[in-house]
């Protein structure tokens, strides 16, 4: 465990890193970014917490059962969105034109509108949750394994 200044600064900074990561995930259809990139930003914040605190302290907050449930939920939502458009083809964009996310932007350069994009924002959220949960579990497991313990059941 590092000194008191490092622990206090890490406790305050994790909130801003989490909000920035969720911003990159949510605006994947308007700006560069998306599910995978935003997930990598949030996981780097978790690595900062792992360096500042001990891995024993982090094991009390991130339980393994919650992380595996989150990862499986993300994968299931992704596959279900692919199957939902099966009336035409597999992976058909069935939300273009419908009132949920279905506006069509003006052609050419324009300032972006958030409620466009079909099912692309929903898939970005599913992939973002999957990447956050999966890579956090891998990093915590390797850090505990190198010290001699293992994750709980």
């Amino acid at each position, binding site marked *: 465990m590092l000194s008191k200044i490092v622990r206090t600064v890490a406790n305050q900074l994790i909130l801003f890193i989490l909000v920035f990561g969720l911003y990159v995930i949510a605006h994947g259809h*308007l700006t*560069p970014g998306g599910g*995978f990139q935003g997930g990598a930003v949030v996981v780097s914040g978790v690595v900062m917490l792992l360096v500042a605190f001990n891995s024993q302290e982090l094991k009390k907050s991130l339980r393994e059962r919650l992380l595996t449930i989150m990862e499986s939920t993300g994968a299931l939502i992704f596959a279900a969105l692919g199957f939902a458009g099966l009336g035409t083809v597999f992976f058909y964009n069935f939300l273009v034109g419908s009132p949920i996310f279905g506006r069509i*932007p003006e052609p050419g*350069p*324009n300032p972006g509108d958030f409620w466009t994009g079909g099912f692309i924002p929903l898939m970005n959220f599913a992939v973002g949750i999957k990447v956050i949960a999966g890579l956090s579990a*891998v990093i915590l497991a*390797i850090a505990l394994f190198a010290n001699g313990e293992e994750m709980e059941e």
Partner: protein
Amino acid sequence: MEHVAHNFPFLASALLMGISFYIVIFRKNLIKLIMGIGMLSSGVNLFIVALGYRTGGNAPIYTDVPEGPMVLSVPQALTLTSIVINVAVLALMLTMVVHIYRHTGDIDSEKSRKLKG
């Protein structure tokens, strides 16, 4: 010489791949081998993105884009997939190196060749 100076990003990618081939052939420490494989994946990803560049082009995103042609967009999507797959393979390799160190007590690739027990 004019042709060589104009194609410089491709030669930079070939330099990265050449250095990582030297590491994989001639070094014995397992951690250095893993670093060489990571550098090889960086060289290949740079080559794929540099293939699709148009001179004076902009990023292929329509939000507030200036005038001009756009670069090709399919190589950038393929590079995204390649980076994620390389991260997954690197995580598995690091776990196996920790297992080898527990089992034999040494991270030399010549000594961990025989599997026993």
